[in-house]
């Protein structure tokens, strides 16, 4: 029967799995591919635009009203002096397209990527 396993089969299987691991590793190293930027908007004007890399470690204080922490490829609103605290409870932003909004202070923290994000897959 032609299905008796030969050593070449194992080589092929190993090659396919190695390729899978290689692509996965390349994607992980490229961090999903693409740059990630954190943008801070206040009263409809862009006040900060910071590129997020693995080494990013920065705190942005907006006159004590809002404190934004950029750490690695994430960003979060650490504190706000408003009553509702919605932006703080939004938590940590990790992907392009996410945003933490503080309506009382009219401050928006959002992450943007340089590549188009997929929003639907049509099968």
């Amino acid at each position, binding site marked *: 029967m032609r299905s008796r396993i030969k050593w070449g*089969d194992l080589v092929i299987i190993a090659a396919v799995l190695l390729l899978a691991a290689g692509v996965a590793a390349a994607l992980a190293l490229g961090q999903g591919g693409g740059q990630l930027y954190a943008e801070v908007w206040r009263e409809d004007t862009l006040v900060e635009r910071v590129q997020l890399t693995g080494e990013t470690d920065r705190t942005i204080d907006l006159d004590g009203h809002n404190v934004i922490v950029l750490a690695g490829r994430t960003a979060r609103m650490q504190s706000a002096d408003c009553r509702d605290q919605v932006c703080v409870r939004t938590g940590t932003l990790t992907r392009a397209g996410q945003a933490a909004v503080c309506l009382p202070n009219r401050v928006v923290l959002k992450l943007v990527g340089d*590549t188009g994000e997929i929003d639907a897959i049509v099968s």
Partner: protein
Amino acid sequence: MKAKKITLCGLLTALAIVLSLVERLFPLDAVVPVPGAKLGLANVVTLFALTRLTPRDAFVVVLCRVSISSLLMGSVTSFLFSLLGGLLALAVMCALLHVEGRFCSLLGVSVAGAAAHNIGQVIAAVVWMQTGAVVAYLPLLLALSVPLGLVTGLTCAIVLQHMKKIEFGA
């Protein structure tokens, strides 16, 4: 002889289309988080056509299968994906069949074909959607192609074993 060959190709195409339809009863992408993951039953027919007929006949069978099954249940996008996947799988299996028996068995040929099919599909998706983000699906698809390729390869080997008993081929 020519009429027999045409009949055989037609039979295999019909079989491949039916297998594609049957495949939809097992929506693999409901279990695995990858859109487009399929059992790859139609690959059994491609492999069979390659072993019992000529590469040219297998090419015709793949072309007809992809066109007709896309008309029946797909879209322009799925046609492109299937076409590139199917042709890449065909090319890889055709090349590997030359060393089949010495270097590897039908199982290895089938696994390589399944992997090639997935790579072709992802390439088509990257070109069509103009984004490299689809490549993220490739590792899981490749890992899946090992067990699925083994199953289709084994199926083909069993079919060939039984085919020995009857006169078949052009």
